[in-house]
C-alpha cells in the first residue's frame, strides 16, 4: 500500500468546519451531509473540508487533540511507556499533514504541533523497530502489537514481511525433510 492510499483512507475521518455559505442537506452515497448555514459549525469528512477550504468557503476548526498541551502529554507518555499508547486518532499523521498544509492559518501554533507530532512518530517507529528486532532474534511464532496506526505499519511492513519470509525459508532448511530431490535418469 502506498502512503497516498493510506491518506485516501484517512480522508474519511470527520472534522468540524464553519462554512460561510448556505446549502441544504446533500445526499451522497456514503451518507448525508449538511445542512450548511453560515457561521454554524458542522461535521464533514476531511476530503470535503479541504476542498471547501481551498475554495475559501469555510474555516477549519482543529480537532481537540491537535493542541500543544495535549500533544506534549501524548509525546511524553509515548516516551515513558514500552508499549504503544493509544493515539487520539488512528490517522493522526495524515490528518496533521493535511490540516497543517491546507489550513495552517486556522490552527494556532502550527509549527510546534508539527514538531510534536513528528517527535511522537519518531518514538513510535523506534519502538516498532525494537520490537521487530526482538521478534526476529527470538524467532517467535507470532506477536501482538496494539495501537499501531496504518501509516506506521505501511512504512515498515514490506521490509518486515520480506525479512520474515527469508527467515522462514532458512529455518525450513534445518529440517532435512524429504530427500526425494534426486532424479535418477539411468
Amino acid at each position, binding site marked *: 500500500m*502506498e*502512503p*497516498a492510499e493510506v*491518506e485516501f483512507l484517512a480522508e474519511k475521518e470527520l472534522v468540524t468546519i464553519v462554512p460561510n455559505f448556505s446549502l441544504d442537506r446533500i445526499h451522497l452515497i456514503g451518507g448525508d451531509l449538511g445542512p450548511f448555514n453560515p457561521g454554524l459549525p458542522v461535521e464533514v469528512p476531511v476530503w470535503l473540508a479541504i476542498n471547501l477550504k481551498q475554495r475559501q468557503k469555510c474555516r477549519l476548526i482543529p480537532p481537540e487533540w491537535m493542541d500543544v498541551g495535549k500533544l506534549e502529554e501524548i509525546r511524553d507518555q509515548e516516551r515513558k511507556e514500552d508499549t504503544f499508547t493509544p493515539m487520539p486518532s488512528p490517522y493522526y499523521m495524515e490528518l496533521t*499533514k493535511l490540516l497543517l*498544509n491546507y489550513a495552517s492559518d486556522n490552527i494556532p501554533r502550527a509549527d510546534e504541533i508539527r514538531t510534536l507530532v513528528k517527535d511522537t512518530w519518531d518514538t513510535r*517507529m523506534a519502538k516498532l*523497530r525494537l520490537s*521487530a*528486532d526482538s521478534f*526476529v*532474534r527470538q*524467532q517467535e511464532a507470532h506477536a501482538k502489537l496494539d495501537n499501531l496506526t496504518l*501509516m506506521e505499519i*505501511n*512504512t*515498515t*511492513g*514490506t*521490509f518486515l514481511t*520480506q*525479512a520474515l519470509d*527469508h*527467515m522462514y*525459508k*532458512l*529455518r*525450513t*532448511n*534445518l529440517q*532435512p525433510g524429504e530427500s526425494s*530431490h*534426486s532424479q535418477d535418469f539411468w
Partner: protein
Amino acid sequence: MAEAYFPVGPGLGMEENFLSLDDILMSQEKLPGRAESALPRLAVLMGQGAGSDNFWLLSFLQGSKLEIPLWLAKGLHDSKRRIISVELPKIFREAWRTVFSADANVVDLHKMGPYYYGFGSQLLNFENPENPEIAQTILQTFIARFRRIMDSSQNAYNEDTSALVARLDELERALFQVGQKGLNDFQCWEKGQASQITASSLVQNYGKRKLAEVDG
C-alpha cells in the same frame, strides 16, 4: 509507481528458482572437490589443457582436485556412481562458523562470495555430516545482521549508501532496497510529491523531440 518488470526472486532454500537471475549467478560459484573416478579427456571442460594433444594433459586422474561450479556439482553428485566428491568451501567450515557465531556483524559478506545465504542453502543438498550446523549458522547470521540492515535502511534518507551496503551480500542488499523504498515513499508523501504528476520512468528515456524543435 508501478514497475515495468517484476524480477523472479531467488528461491532461498534447498531448491533454486529456475527463472531467477540471482540463482543462476549464484550457482556459478565454485566448490572445491575431487574427482572420484578418472575423467578421460574432460579437462577442457574445466578450462585446462586446451589446444594440446597430450592425453594426460587433457584428462583428470582419480583423486585430482577440482574447482567445480555449483550447477555442475549438483548434476554430477550421486552417491551411487561416484564421479566427484565435494568438500565444503572455507567459509562454511568450523573455523569461520565460530567467527559467525561470535559476531556476525563485522564479517564482509560481499567479499565472502556475494551469495552467502543462497549458496549455503544449496550446500545442504550434498550429504555431509555437518549440515545441521551449517543450516543453523546461516540462520543465526541472518538474525544477527537483521537489526543493522533494518536500522540503516530506514534511516538513511538521501545519502550515499554505498558504505552501508558494501559489506552486505545480495540477499541483504535486496532487503536494504526494500527498506529504502519504504522510507523514500513515506518522505516523498510527506513532502507532498506523492500528488504531483511526474513523467513515468518508462517513457523518460524515449527522448522525444519537443514540439518547438519540430516546427521550422
